[in-house]
């Protein structure tokens, strides 16, 4: 009889083995109890455990009689096990679905903000009104999360205690991630440079600069052209953010539970920063300044 490849895993559940299950709360233990259909992380089962289970399964079946009764029992158990396996699979699909949903939400958020209709909306992209300014200062670059900071967060979470133990020391975290962070930082610097070029040369293109007598072009056309350039740079920044998020979830975190754990932490930390920022804005109130300094009559340095 050819054994389906899934059987050793089924047997693993049938046996009284303890299986490490990774969840956001850390380890938990799975007992062989049919009434407890917990969600099992298959990727958390180590290969040696599976081999041990295969050996045990092969050993216990060797030399037994293949009676009709045993076959019937086997079939019932098989159906039972398959049902439980199906449940686990569905749960994994649900996690996969939620991760994809989260990624497409980021995609939609960045795409939506990519289509401003008015010139003044461009300012909303770089300094969005709906994000409290302390939050902008804490985490953002050109209007939203800085791409390299997204991966910095992942790197530091992976090294922190309490986060998935499979990550720290892995090639993905120790080798690939630092390379990706470096790559993103270079791309950010390139975008910064492009933005700087616009900001440094706008004096020659805006209608009130010293070159204002340019070829009779209407003032608003000059302004529009500058804002289009800025918008192009912001679009690049948005795409880089999305790339960083996809790198984290698809390239670095190959295990879906790790990806889910990262997304939970990402949202949690963003929420905490938002709360702090809202409070900070209230506490600090509008800033005051010594007007004396403005009236000082010191000679220029």
């Amino acid at each position, binding site marked *: 009889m050819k054994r389906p490849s899934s059987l050793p895993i089924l047997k693993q559940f049938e046996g009284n083995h303890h299986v490490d299950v990774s969840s956001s*709360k850390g380890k938990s233990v799975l007992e062989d109890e049919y009434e407890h259909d917990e969600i099992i992380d298959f990727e958390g089962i180590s290969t040696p455990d599976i081999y041990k289970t295969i050996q045990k399964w092969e050993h216990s079946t060797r030399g037994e009689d293949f009676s009709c009764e045993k076959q019937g029992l086997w079939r019932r158990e098989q159906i039972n096990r398959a049902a439980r396996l199906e449940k686990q699979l569905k749960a994994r699909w649900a996690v996969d679905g939620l991760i994809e949903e989260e990624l497409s939400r980021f995609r939609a958020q960045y795409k939506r903000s990519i289509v401003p*209709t*008015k*010139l*003044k909306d*461009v*300012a*909303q992209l*770089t300094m969005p009104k709906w994000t409290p*300014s*302390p939050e*902008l*200062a*804490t*985490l953002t670059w050109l209007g939203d999360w800085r791409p*390299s*900071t997204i991966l*910095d967060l992942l790197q*530091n*979470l992976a090294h*922190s*205690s*309490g*986060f998935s133990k499979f990550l720290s020391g892995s090639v993905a975290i120790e080798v690939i991630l630092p390379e990706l962070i470096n790559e993103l930082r270079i791309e*950010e*610097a390139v975008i*910064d440079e492009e*933005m*700087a070029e*616009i*900001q*440094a040369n706008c004096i020659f293109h805006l*209608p*009130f*600069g*010293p070159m204002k*007598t340019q070829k009779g072009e209407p*003032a*608003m056309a000059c*302004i*529009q052209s500058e804002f289009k350039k800025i918008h192009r740079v912001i679009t690049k920044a948005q795409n880089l953010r999305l790339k960083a998020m996809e790198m984290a979830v698809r390239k670095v975190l190959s295990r879906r539970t790790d990806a889910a754990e990262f997304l*939970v932490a990402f949202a*949690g*930390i963003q929420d*905490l920063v938002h*709360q*702090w920022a809202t409070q900070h804005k209230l506490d*600090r*109130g*509008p*800033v*005051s*300044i*010594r*007007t004396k*300094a403005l009236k*000082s009559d010191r*000679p*220029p*340095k």
Partner: protein
Amino acid sequence: MSGAIDLRSYLKITTMDGSKIKTLKDVLLPKLRHAMSSSSTSGPILLASHVEVMHRHFLQYYEALDLAAGNDVVQVLYPDWRNPFEKPFLWLGDIHPYLFINLFRSFIRDAESEIDPRIFDKQQNWHVVMAWKNTSKKLPARVDQIECGLRLMVPALAARARDAQAAFVKNVAAEWGRCEGRKEEMKGVVAEAATAEMEELVGVLVDANRLRRSVLSDILNVTDVYQAAVFLEALAQFLVGFRNRELLSQFEKCSLEL
């Protein structure tokens, strides 16, 4: 720092920038222009004093921004009091320091071109018209020198701002694992990490303003009084332009066709 934080002190900062610009627009720029005009009879001494007053105006403006940053750097980096027209052109709270050097270079470049006859419409003093026509041969090398320092400092400041954010995330992430995301414990962690980050950002902003001040002063040190006057007049006119009411109302309505 003034401890009183109320609506009136709020108005001080919200109008700080505005009043500075208003002074520039209504007092300093017209005075400078008058001193540059052919009808002015008082000569280079008066012009020099107007140049100095405007230079000092810029230095004080950056000092005021530094003071405001010491109170709350967030409001200087992401200023509510700026209009949506100027916001996208801000780098660390104000105009990009490259702009000073680019403007300066444009005058040196123009030195080789023919005199634009339209300049005579401005009825400027002959020395002002010719200010950039007989520039010192050493000038381009000195501009290169100023720009070289600037090109090193700007990316370094951007990297410092980025590293401050990375350090914040590092501090928060380390505790997130330990607290297992427990919100109450994390609140204190976030506040502490954010305070440390803001302190670093104050340093970055103050250094950005120092860079602006030093580039401006370097430029004025290598120019004569007529060149300085032409340079400052162009700069002031540009800054005032962002507050042009008529242009702003057109801007508000204008759509972005991509």
